[in-house]
């Protein structure tokens, strides 16, 4: 296959990937978009087979390894529960990162196969691209592994901080630049290995100080990194499909991180430097005096809802933890049978990854046109009778609007307190991730329902 013809086919596959993302602008077109993505991938792989043109026994092994990886991937995709989606995505990012590292290593050992020169005499531009691809890939890998462990609960979600952390990280990042520079001037294999090891180390160090609820930003950021790593390798291989895809994924992840940071009114650097929540707890003990709280049971909640004409549901990470989405939908079905209008309000940072709550509600068969984003629904709280907060906390805290001293001041929050009555399902009065008390607990119109989210929802349904 001529180089020009394969380049055009790679370009087509890049365009199909653009269409795959374009399809996600609405649920109706999204399935078609995903199909375009699959076609793009099939084209890219087929073209590569033909342009290498080596159908010897090695080719059989390629197919075997492809089948091994593919069946593992398919198995995971069908078995994974929807609540575990953040872990899955973090895990998948780590694989892209590691694959980038492996490809870069292979190109470094055997540059002739890639047309990049000879060992010890690799073209300068290729070497720089290779080093960038390998370093970013390694950072993506170790960072995603830590994110995965934190999300999976194998590692505590609490931020791990120590003295001189930022200085150490800055020093390591600087050393990566210096290593790349010397690698290019000496072509030394040892420097290449050191560069990879140091990159693994920094990926690990960057993520450990970031707490559990900041994971939406972390996952988006790693998503972005995996794109830049792919683009770096794309430059090395002079492959358009990889360059286009890398750029798409890189900017996609960056935009998602930006949206997540905006949802918390924090700067990207504030999140990345980490330690949020850990330091605030001690300084925030002004609310130590006991304030009166009204608490109720499922019967009271059912009574309030039965007499309402409109109810807004505010789900959060707690709903995912309790796996309460199906029970919630059953409750809503009962409410709808009683001619009560129900809608769902989703805060941008609810859950552990962008769009986490939407997927869980979709899984429970909630139609997506009943689910609204913060800006779409925030004015409706004032006219609604009941707000049902299930597993959310900080994103409903009115303090963000009233107290300039609060660490979450300025964060966009759902105006839950404007509802006639608020039902707040929570296991205890403990503060949320930001480590601050939620004023909503003590409002006149708030009824606290102390229980597991799933059990409480089921009990309410029985009482309706």
């Amino acid at each position, binding site marked *: 296959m001529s180089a020009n013809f394969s380049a055009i086919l790679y370009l087509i*596959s890049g365009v199909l990937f*653009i269409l795959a993302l374009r399809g996600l*602008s609405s*649920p109706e077109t999204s399935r078609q*978009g995903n199909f375009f*993505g699959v076609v*793009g*991938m099939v084209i890219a*792989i087929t073209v590569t*087979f033909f342009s290498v043109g*080596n159908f*010897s026994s*090695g080719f059989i092994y*390629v197919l075997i*390894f*492809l089948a091994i*990886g*593919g069946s*593992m991937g*398919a198995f*995971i*995709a*069908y078995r994974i529960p929807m609540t575990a*989606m953040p872990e899955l*995505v973090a895990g*998948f990012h780590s*694989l*892209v990162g590691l*694959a980038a590292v*492996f*490809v870069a290593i292979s190109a470094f050992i*055997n540059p002739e196969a890639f047309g990049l020169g000879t060992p010890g005499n690799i073209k300068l531009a290729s070497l720089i691209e290779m080093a960038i691809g390998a370093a970013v890939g390694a950072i993506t890998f170790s960072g995603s592994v830590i994110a995965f462990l934190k999300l999976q609960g194998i590692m505590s979600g609490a931020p791990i901080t120590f003295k001189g952390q930022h200085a150490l990280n800055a020093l390591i990042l600087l050393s990566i630049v210096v290593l790349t520079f010397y690698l290019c001037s000496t072509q030394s294999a040892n420097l290449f290995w050191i560069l990879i090891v140091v990159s693994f180390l920094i990926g690990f160090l960057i993520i450990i100080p970031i707490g559990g609820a900041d994971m939406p930003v972390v*996952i988006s950021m790693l998503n972005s990194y*995996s794109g830049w790593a*792919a683009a770096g390798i*794309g*430059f*090395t*291989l*002079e492959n*358009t*499909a*990889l*360059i*286009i895809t*890398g*750029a*798409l*994924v890189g*900017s*996609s992840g960056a935009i998602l991180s930006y*949206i997540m940071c905006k949802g918390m009114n924090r700067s990207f650097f504030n999140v990345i430097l980490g330690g949020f929540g850990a330091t605030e707890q001690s300084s925030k003990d002004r609310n130590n005096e006991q304030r009166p709280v009204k608490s109720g049971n499922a019967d009271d909640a059912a009574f309030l809802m039965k007499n309402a004409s409109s109810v807004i549901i505010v789900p959060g990470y707690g709903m995912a933890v309790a796996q309460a989405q199906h029970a919630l939908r059953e409750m809503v079905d009962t409410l709808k049978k009683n001619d009560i209008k129900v809608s769902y309000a989703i805060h941008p940072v609810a859950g552990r990854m*962008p*769009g986490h709550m*939407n*997927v869980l509600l979709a899984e429970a068969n909630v*139609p*997506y*046109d009943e689910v609204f*984003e913060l800006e779409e629904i925030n004015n409706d709280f004032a006219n609604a009778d009941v707000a049902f907060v299930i597993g959310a906390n900080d994103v409903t805290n009115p303090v963000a609007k009233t107290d300039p001293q609060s660490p979450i001041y300025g964060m966009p929050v759902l105006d839950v307190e404007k509802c006639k009555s608020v039902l707040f399902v929570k296991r205890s009065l403990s503060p949320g991730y930001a480590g601050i008390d939620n004023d909503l607990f003590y409002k006149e119109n708030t009824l606290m329902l102390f229980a597991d989210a799933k059990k409480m929802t089921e009990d309410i349904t029985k009482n309706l």
Partner: protein
Amino acid sequence: MEIDPFIFRLSIFILSIFIGYYVVWSVTPSLHTPLMSVTNAISSVIIVGAIIAALSGGDGVIFSSSSIFGFLAIVLAAVNIFGGFLVTQRMLAMYKKKKKN
């Protein structure tokens, strides 16, 4: 003077970042999770490099030091490609409209 091909690739790269920027902003927030899983799947097009690496051994040599890394990368990327697209499809199949009574 001839323009270095690198400049062309850089142009493609920069323009693709802009395409990505506008395309991703138009993605509806409720599909942000499928967006992450599908970007994850397409970034595994890095398998292209893995295949070249795996077939780098030349005639008769299947497993050389460079091709082994290629084969490993193929497995990793294949997990992502199949896993990423299938899980996206599984998620997207759940997004349904309200049934009209």
